[in-house]
């Protein structure tokens, strides 16, 4: 994965070690380039337009967007876990299903489903703690498949609880709004969680922890040897993804209004997260966003035939994983040198300083 680790490289091909000596010789270290500023502005405008969308279009369109944002949340979480912390899970549908059932449970006790979202999210995170204790000692393949077993155990336990509808499923109560308002509320809630999720991941990766995470992504043993606290960083990331997938599951329950254990704990959720992340570009924030867009177009064109859709998606993901491991965003970012969510540093050689308006100097 060494090819991905370009965030800390110098702009203009300068050797990064030169910059480590400090701000000498007129070099300037910045976190952003112009593309990031435009990306930030575009994001604000996009969120504003997206937020206004329910006033412009019918609820079938916002319904599609709800699906889109749910996929985006899940894929971003999986990307954080696999792309940065190096943990491949095939069992994160466990947290999706739990989030969904927590919302149903809270609604049964009279809480509004929308108020229940943060509580269900926190509950999924709490469940993540013992799960992490169980799986943290396992490596790669063992970790992946044990997570799958845990998801299966969660499902089998819920199937036995008759007050939660057993295996036949249960309807979500407490949604009293008119259909139009309900569709808009669901859309706004999903948009809010998606924006929070991506902003949260971005903030996490720009913090000190982000540096450790990027180091783990590039070389886990190396990160450990220079004193990166790999274990505790991985635990934090695992819990964040448990929260994120729990929130996605809560939104899933609200948008479906009826949930069945076999669907809420379906491994297809994780298959979608994996394929989106690989195709979009693993180990970048932009990757899952691009991947979800591609995925959604594929879904809309091939949706008439579910099996073909999965066959095509699986084959493309296999090909990308082997022959273009940085995904679509990796190719774009390499070719044009743009990064919409800069989490690394740029070193500007003397005489080639960035414009102050656009980039704040990290070390004056």
């Amino acid at each position, binding site marked *: 994965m060494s090819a991905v680790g370009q965030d800390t490289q110098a702009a203009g091909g300068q050797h990064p070690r030169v910059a480590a000596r400090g701000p000498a010789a007129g070099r300037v270290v910045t976190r952003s380039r112009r593309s990031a500023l435009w990306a930030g502005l575009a994001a604000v405008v996009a969120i504003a337009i997206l937020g206004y969308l329910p006033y412009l279009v019918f609820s079938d369109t916002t319904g599609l967007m709800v699906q889109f944002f749910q996929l985006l949340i899940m894929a971003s979480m999986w990307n954080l876990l696999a792309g940065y912390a190096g943990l491949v899970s095939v069992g994160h549908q466990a947290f999706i299903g739990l989030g969904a059932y927590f919302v149903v449970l809270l609604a049964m006790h009279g809480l509004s489903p929308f108020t229940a979202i943060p509580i269900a999210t926190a509950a999924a995170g709490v469940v993540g703690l013992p799960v992490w204790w169980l799986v943290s000692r396992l490596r790669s393949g063992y970790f992946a498949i044990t997570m799958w077993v845990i998801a299966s155990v969660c499902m089998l336990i819920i199937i036995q609880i008759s007050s939660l509808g057993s295996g036949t499923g249960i309807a979500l109560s407490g949604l009293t709004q008119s259909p139009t308002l309900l569709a808009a509320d669901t859309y706004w809630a999903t948009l809010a969680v998606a924006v929070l999720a991506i902003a949260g991941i971005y903030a996490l990766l720009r913090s000190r922890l982000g540096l450790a995470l990027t180091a783990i992504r590039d070389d886990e043993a190396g990160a450990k040897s220079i004193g990166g606290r790999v274990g505790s960083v991985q635990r934090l990331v695992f819990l964040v993804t448990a929260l994120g997938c729990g929130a996605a599951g809560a939104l899933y329950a609200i948008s479906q209004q009826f949930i069945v254990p076999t669907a809420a704990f379906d491994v297809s959720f994780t298959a979608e997260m*994996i394929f989106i992340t690989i195709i979009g570009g693993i180990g970048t924030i932009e990757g899952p966003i691009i991947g979800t867009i591609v995925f959604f177009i594929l879904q809309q064109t091939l949706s008439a035939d579910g099996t073909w859709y999965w*066959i095509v998606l699986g084959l493309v993901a296999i090909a990308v994983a082997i022959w273009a491991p940085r995904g679509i965003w990796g190719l774009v970012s390499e070719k044009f040198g743009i990064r919409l969510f800069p989490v690394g540093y740029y070193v500007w050689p003397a005489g080639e300083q960035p414009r102050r308006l656009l980039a704040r100097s990290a070390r004056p």
Partner: protein
Amino acid sequence: MTWVNAVIQGVMLGGLYALFACGLSLMFGVMKVINLAHGDLAMVAAYIALGVVTITHVPAIWSFVLVVPIFAALGYVLQRTLLQASLNRGVITTLLVTFGLSVVIENALQQFLSANSRELNIGSLVSDSFSIGSQITIAYLDLIILVVAVAVLLGLQYFLSSSRSGRMIRAVADDREAAQLAGIDYRHVFGIATAIAFGTVALAGLAYGMYTQFDPTTGTTALLLYAFEAVVIGGLGSLWGTLAGGILLGVAQQVGAQYHAADQVLAGQLLFLIILVLRPQGITSRRELA
């Protein structure tokens, strides 16, 4: 007495699980990757057997004569092409590629062969049985599968410890670089190990197809997890541990089913989690491959 019967049925079922698990264990031991398409490959073998029976009209129980060599060849080719290419990229890529393969296989089976349940028709053998006392009945088929599983494990043990290829496999599993220095082409050795693993998974798929009904989703919803659980319970790298793990898993499932029909799968998975907490190295802790 019904509990004794449950345990005996569990031991019988354990043979089937051990047959599934040994291929997974071998591939992990040699290449250090878990093949997430393992269960689906078993289903492919069962479907190929259906085709072989339809075309050649041989009795289903003899279909392995054709299917196992086909699968071994398929395993070698797949390892030398797709799997080696992903191994070159690293462990994570290999996991993702085998997962992708699993999804593709499952959906291709559904697309081309329909989602209907099938079974390999072995005539009256499926119900023939003998009794011990008044309560315990043992089906001949179950006994045959258990015997085949033990025979396969014995054969693997002998192959790995005594044959030239077996020694090469163990050498590569222990230390790939050192084996390469000694002149071994590790990619060829990986191919041989995968061919053997595919042969055993084909056998397991056929046994499952005779034992009960299957459909394209059986591979992921049941078989992969059972095989993995048997490997972990038994302890990695020990073929006899795999048999013990398979049997323990089978017994847990049958005893669970005796308690409550819905608890069959859950009981096995809880046993797996308990072993994982208390004894993550498995019940047999030897760390050699064979």
